[in-house]
């Protein structure tokens, strides 16, 4: 019996990865960010994965237009639950606070439901709002990111976390690297040597 996880396409790179990878993209160019986002969503829908997008910078019209170019109906996919578009504020900052426990539950349920509903896999792409640095619970961001890596071992929901380098301090960006095993550099996904395994990170 082959227990190897099936591989998936991330869209923005030709390399295939097993489902349930945790990747960060540090960007300072909006085109680069948008291109990665649209290709990630497109590839997920093309392979039948349940796909969610939490971004302030992905207007439905832009996503819809991109998907239409590849024969995908934005309205249909949103209607049947294949695609979920939401504002980061409504997902990450419910009740005006950031709660990693709640977020882990949301992701867990998202993956469980997806499996139950017959999706071969589930993926999420979200841009972390710089607001995180100023709201209650925001200091637990790295804890949350590290726990996502832990979660993925049981619930292999593929996550791409986008961080705008223009909105975060350099030290914070370095810290973000430490909780993501993979990262996107110039369109390529690379292993992150700064990554600290969640057990070690959370123990520290």
């Amino acid at each position, binding site marked *: 019996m082959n227990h190897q996880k099936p591989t998936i396409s991330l869209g923005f790179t030709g390399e295939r990865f097993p489902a349930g990878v945790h990747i960060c993209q*540090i*960007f*300072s*160019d909006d085109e680069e960010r948008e291109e990665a986002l649209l290709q990630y969503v497109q590839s997920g829908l093309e392979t039948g994965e349940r796909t969610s997008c939490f971004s302030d910078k992905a207007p439905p019209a832009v996503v819809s237009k991109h998907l239409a170019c590849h024969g995908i109906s934005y309205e249909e996919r949103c209607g049947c639950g294949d695609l979920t578009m939401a504002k980061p504020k409504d997902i990450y900052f419910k009740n005006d606070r950031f709660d990693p426990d709640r977020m882990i539950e949301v992701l867990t349920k998202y993956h469980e439901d997806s499996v139950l509903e017959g999706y071969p896999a589930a993926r999420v792409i979200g841009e972390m709002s710089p607001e995180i640095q100023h709201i209650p619970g925001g200091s637990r961001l790295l804890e949350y990111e590290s726990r996502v890596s832990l979660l993925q071992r049981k619930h292999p929901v593929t996550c791409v976390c986008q961080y705008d*380098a*223009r909105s*975060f*301090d*350099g*030290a914070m*960006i*370095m*810290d973000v*690297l430490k909780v993501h095993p993979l*990262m996107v*550099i*110039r369109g390529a996904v*690379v*292993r*992150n*040597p*700064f990554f600290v395994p969640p057990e070690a990170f959370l123990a520290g």
Partner: protein
Amino acid sequence: MSEPDTSKLSAHVLGQLLLMQNVLCNLPNEQTIFSFVCRGLTDLPGVAEVNHVATAKSVDATVLLRLPLHAGGAHWGDLLIKISDPVAFLPYEPYLKNFVFMVAVILEERQQRQLNAEHQSQLEQRVQERTQQLTAEINDRRKIEEELRRSRNMLAHTFDSVPQAVFWKDRRGVYLGCNQVFAQAAGFDHPDAVVGKTDFEMPWPQAETEAYRTDDRSVIDQNQPKRHIIEPLQQADGTRRWIDTTKVPLTDESGAVYGVLGVYEDITDRRLAEAERKRLEEQLTQAQKMESVGRLAGGVAHDFNNMLQAIIGYAGLALADEPGTETYKESLEEIQKAAKRSADLTHQLLAFARKQTVSPKVLDLNEAVASMLKMLQRLIGENIQLAWLPGPGLWPVWVDPVQIDQILANLTVNARDAISGSGGITIETSNQTLDERSAPFQSEAEPGDYVKLTIRDTGCGMDSETQKHLFEPFFTTKPVGKGTGLGLATVYGIVKQNHGFISVQSEPGRGSTFTIHLQRCPIQPDMPTIVTEESVNRGTETVLLVEDEELILKLARRILEQHGYTVLSARLPEEALEMVAKFQGLI
């Protein structure tokens, strides 16, 4: 420090350095880069703390390594590295130094990129500004060209609208332009066809072309306009016209003359009309004279009849007397006196009525007025008193005596008509010198010596409105059929012709005074003067006398023979010619 042991190097750590180097390129600014690097380098083995300082004057004693961020002559401060485990750190030191240098290179490239971007932005901004400027200039130029085109069209339209012909030439006489009127007169459809041509290519005759060019040269050489050149013009259709041309020099901004601008008006019709008007005026003047003569004749007839009565009476007495007696001689003398008075009357009448050209002479105005007094008295009638106040030592004037007669007759008749019932007319002469102070009060006067002739009446006078139009031809206040309206216009014309001036002072109910100033004439030997004394000549030559009136012929023959002449008399020209042919001597 000893040589690092590369066998202890961790690929993981080197990968971190490499990854940081790659991530740096995505970071937005220097501050983020320094913060990122400092945080990342603390993961290096043996490193306790990393800080970035822009300018560190003194280094903390605990800092073991100070790495400058320096590349391409630019400096971004230093990285101050606290080493906690020198042994663990030592293998990575050269890699760290390389990394720091690469950071500096990335910073330099970034700075260069930013400078390039700024330069590019500035360049694009300048290009945009210059493009806008050029666009504005082009638009302005187009506007100016449009304005220029409109001005040219308007100028051309204006030139074409004026009824006069307009043309302009350069110094060599080459036409630079003209209006439609000129072009058509020269036989061209459009003014453009004239440009570049000279007068020799126009339909003008050779002599007239030379005259035009002489005027052009005069205007250009003297930089002075020539106005109202009355000259002939031959049009393209061969018709001959009279034109009134004015030429002015064309000058550039520096005042240098580069050509001549000419405007001419076809005055052929006006000249014909003027000639016709002059002819009609002469006819009217003559008619007015004849009217005066008619009135005069009525007055003269009575006196003339009296004279004839005297002549007939004394002739009867003489015939009845013995020749040679005292009474016989007295009768003949009375006959001669009455005949002379009759002759005087006749001469005055002829002089007044005669249509003759102006023949100015050196004249004593007092004598001229005095000789007219009897006739004037007859013109004004017995109810009006005529006073004559001759000025002493009156200066001579240069004027046709007949014109003086006309002035006196017209002004006196007007004065008579202004007087209802009885009144008086005064004629006065005097000398007057007008200087700079007094001359301006006489609007047309120039300083100098003048002889003043004043005709004053006690008539009804005139209001100011009447005085305004007084000298206009055909203006009259007299009933229809009573005046021609040319009397005072004639007087005005005569005075102006003789370089004098006339003025009038009048108020309703207070009479009128006409004052005429005539320039004093400096007498010169060759000027004709009126011979006032008859010279009696005697001779022995043979005279041929031809007269159709038998009585005059007989009388003249007797007078000439009494003065010693041999007389051949004939009544007809043929008879006279026959006598000349037969006569052997000198006639």
